[in-house]
């Protein structure tokens, strides 16, 4: 064991005792006169002395080990009285309630710290636990974007076992919340509390220093252990993949690459469609900048899994891939109920000719136009569009049939028309997402919210001249409105959807029908209305989010693990497959987090640590016993020397 290096003295004044060395040396030099003996002859004595003459004073010192030993003893005793101590990392710590927060976010997968930041963090945690005393308690929290409690106030042996089983997630980081969770977990313990945060301190949600201060205020010691070698990275921070509105068999793919480094990065990106390489391009990305790339790839009408992979994307791999699901194109059979006259024959759409044009333009949509009261069997269709019809022409029972039609999982789209208020049918009212009051005139713009029905639709230049005062029903979602009156709203009914479109395609109602977005809107509206996702609501999510299913289902995550639940935490990038009774559904999960890809930036540095006044815990090891032991050894040697000289 090496002797610890003294860090200071508890009683430094005692060091003055070392000055006793001076009189000791003086005593040695001026020691009492030796016994004087008058002797017959010094002839022999001088001869011996001359044969070993070391006249130099220095040699005299060296020659006499007793003096050196005595000086050593005096110095050691003085040092022992001064009670030196060494600050050493605690090897046998006192009992404490320890919470170890391990950053398990995506950036911890960076390989700048070998083997990875996360595995190094686990090793650090293991070392901390091993140093803890037997009666200490250990809590372990993984700081993903939602803190995950792995173990709460457990014995250290159990904590060590658990460490072998934890994994790093692909999620963003949220160390501040994890610290607060650690505080709550330790609150019941009567032991001294310490929270260790092992992280790369890449950007995180919230402010880690603020959380640390909160812990300090609660009497909890906080130690930060940083694992970050300030390396650069390049990664995908955004991506989009979908069919082009006008050519549904053409994939529009866009992705954004960001270079966090100070040097230009040459990267190669590959696009795979259903694991088949569809495109390969090389890009040079300027330092500290991001570039967006788009490309089109021909695809079929089937569902496709798209993967974008960036090669040479730095030391973090999780952001070098993006995933997307392009759904299958469904063929729709739509019936448009309208009314016509001589100038607007029903065959060409009647009063809803613009609607008929828009729907008819879709290659995957078989449109049939009918005028009540005579309508074809509903079973031939999956979508019914009720246009400008005369309310009194609809036979009783029709809406009852339509209601059943929707409940079975089909779609109903209702367009606001001059006579809609005259449809006084209870079933119709039940289906309507909104309750209409009266017709309002006045040119108004439309306010929209983000929705896939409006994804490629521009309503900026659309003006409504007439619209119904309306109120959304409780279970309805409004995605466009003017003056608080819903213009586009939808609801589910049974297994189907009902969409209300308050913008009538008539000259005196609006100019929407003249917009190039109009057919796109109708395509997307019918597509959305017919979506048959029984379980998922979105086919694209980000890590750190929850996949909330309509009901319990078995889910296979990207690494092949299966779990049955209604809510699944998405902690891995890739494709999740949800196994439903009506078939499998697949969603794509991406990191796409600009902060998480920035593995270089550390939000905490030495200065901020000082501001926090967080000091590393070190134990003070008093060394006087060691010095006394050395002194005893020196005295023993002195005794041996005395004995050899025959003085004892």
């Amino acid at each position, binding site marked *: 064991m090496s002797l610890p290096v003294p860090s200071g003295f508890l009683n430094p004044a005692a060091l003055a005792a070392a000055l006793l060395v001076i009189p000791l040396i003086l005593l040695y030099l001026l*020691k009492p*006169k*030796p*016994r*004087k*003996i*008058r*002797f*017959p*002859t*010094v*002839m*022999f*004595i*001088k*001869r*011996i*002395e001359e044969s070993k003459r070391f006249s130099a004073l220095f040699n005299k010192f060296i020659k006499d080990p007793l003096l050196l030993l005595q000086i050593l003893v005096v110095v050691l005793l003085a040092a022992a009285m001064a009670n030196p101590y060494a600050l050493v990392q605690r090897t046998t710590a006192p009992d404490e309630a320890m919470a170890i927060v391990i950053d398990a976010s995506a950036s911890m997968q960076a390989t700048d710290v070998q083997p990875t930041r996360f595995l190094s963090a686990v090793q650090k945690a293991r070392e901390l636990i091993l140093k803890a005393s037997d009666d200490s308690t250990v809590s372990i929290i993984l700081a993903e974007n939602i803190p995950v409690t792995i173990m709460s106030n457990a014995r250290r042996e159990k904590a060590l076992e658990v460490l072998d089983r934890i994994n790093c997630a692909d999620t963003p980081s949220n160390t501040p919340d994890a610290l607060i969770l650690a505080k709550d977990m330790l609150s019941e313990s009567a032991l001294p509390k310490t929270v260790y945060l092992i992280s790369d301190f890449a950007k995180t949600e919230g402010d880690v220093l603020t959380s640390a201060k909160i812990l300090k205020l609660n009497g909890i010691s906080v130690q930060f252990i940083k694992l970050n070698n300030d390396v650069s990275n390049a990664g995908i921070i955004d991506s989009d993949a979908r069919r082009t509105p006008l050519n549904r068999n053409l994939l529009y793919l866009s992705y954004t690459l960001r270079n966090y480094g100070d040097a230009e990065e040459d990267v190669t990106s590959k696009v795979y469609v259903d694991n088949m390489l569809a495109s390969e391009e090389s890009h040079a990305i300027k330092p500290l900048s991001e570039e967006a790339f788009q490309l089109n790839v021909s695809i079929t009408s089937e569902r496709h899994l798209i993967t974008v992979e960036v090669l040479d994307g730095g030391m973090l791999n999780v952001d070098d891939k993006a995933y997307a699901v392009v759904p299958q194109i469904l063929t729709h059979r739509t019936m448009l109920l309208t009314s016509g006259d001589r100038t607007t024959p029903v065959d060409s759409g009647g009063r809803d000719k613009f609607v008929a044009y828009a729907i008819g333009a879709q290659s995957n949509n078989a449109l049939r136009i009918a005028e009540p009261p005579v309508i074809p069997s509903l079973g031939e269709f999956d979508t019914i569009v009720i246009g400008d019809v005369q309310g009194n022409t609809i036979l009783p029972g029709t809406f009852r049939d339509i209601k059943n039609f929707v409940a079975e999982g089909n779609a109903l789209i209702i367009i606001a028309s001059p006579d809609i208020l005259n449809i006084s049918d209870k079933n119709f009212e039940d289906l309507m997402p909104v309750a209409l009051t009266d017709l309002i005139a006045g040119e108004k713009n439309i306010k929209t919210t983000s929705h896939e029905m409006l994804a490629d639709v521009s309503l900026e230049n659309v003006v409504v001249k007439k619209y119904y005062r309306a109120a959304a029903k409780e279970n309805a979602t409004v995605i466009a409105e003017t003056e608080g009156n819903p213009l586009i709203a939808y609801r589910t009914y049974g297994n189907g959807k009902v969409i209300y479109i308050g913008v009538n395609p008539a000259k005196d109602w609006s100019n929407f029908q003249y917009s190039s977005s109009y057919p796109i809107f109708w395509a997307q509206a019918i597509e959305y209305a017919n979506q048959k996702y029984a379980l998922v609501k979105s086919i694209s999510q980000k890590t750190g989010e929850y996949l909330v299913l309509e009901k319990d289902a078995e889910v296979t995550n990207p690494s092949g693990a299966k779990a049955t639940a209604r809510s699944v935490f998405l902690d891995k990038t890739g494709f999740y497959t949800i196994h439903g009774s009506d078939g499998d559904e697949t969603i794509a999960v991406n990191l796409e987090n600009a902060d998480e890809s920035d593995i270089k930036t550390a939000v905490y540095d030495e200065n901020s640590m000082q501001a926090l006044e967080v000091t590393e815990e070190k134990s003070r090891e008093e060394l006087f016993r060691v010095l006394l032991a050395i002194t005893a050894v020196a005295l023993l040697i002195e005794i041996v020397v005395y004995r*050899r*000289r*025959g*003085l004892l």
Partner: protein
Amino acid sequence: MIDPSFLNQLNKLNLILKRRVSNAYAGGRASIQYGRGIEPVDHREYIRGDDLRLVDWKLYGRTERLYIRRFEEEKSMILHLLVDASASMDFQNSPATSIKKFDYAGSLATGFAYLSVHENEKFSAALFSSKLGDVMAPDKSKKHLFTMIDVMNKTPLSGVTDFSTAANQFAKTIRSKSFAVVISDFLAPLDSIEEGVYRMAKASEELMVIQVLDPSEINLAWTDDIHFEDLETKESARTYLSPKFKEEYKHMVAEHIARLQRICNEVGISFNLITTDMPLLDAFVGLIGGAKRGT
């Protein structure tokens, strides 16, 4: 101070020495030659040329024949004592030893002188340091003995041992038929000692060298830091007497003694090492025994 009790011990010792044994104690021995002496041995018939004063006229009156008295020729071997009185002899590591080196040496010399007087032999004595001093001419009276003791007791011990010079001077006073005894610590350069030994050996018929040392001179009885001052030269030497140092010192002194013994052996004289912790009488008996064995 010469120990008076030693003289009493010597008186007892005399009984042992009654026999005419030793040529070391030359007096009292029958001569194999006839000559002019005090005690008549026998008579012989007068022949011409004989000294008429030697005619025994009383015998002539009884026998009417001329006889002359024959006397034993005087064959007295003079004892020459040379004792070191240099400053180095003024040493006694009291209380370990109870007698100074010089007193011990003087006592030994007194012992020899006593025996000599007792046998009616003459002895001479001299002290030396850097030169010869207090020379006493040969005599065989008891008064001479006590004078010698008195001189020894009063002589200040000083000066540096110069055995060569002293031996040179003392040798001139020695006539033939002499037995010389040199008592010293011989703590001097061996060259000087060797020269003196040769001179004394040449001058005397027989020579005995006695080295008297205090035990602490051989073993360095002290420890720790010692400041030694040379009794003769006044030089000083400060040293730390570690066991190792003492071992080296002992080895060096032993080497000195061994070389001195080799010198004596080379010229066929007896060498004796006496330490002052030995009882005087034992040492003296040993010496005269050695002399006996040497005959």
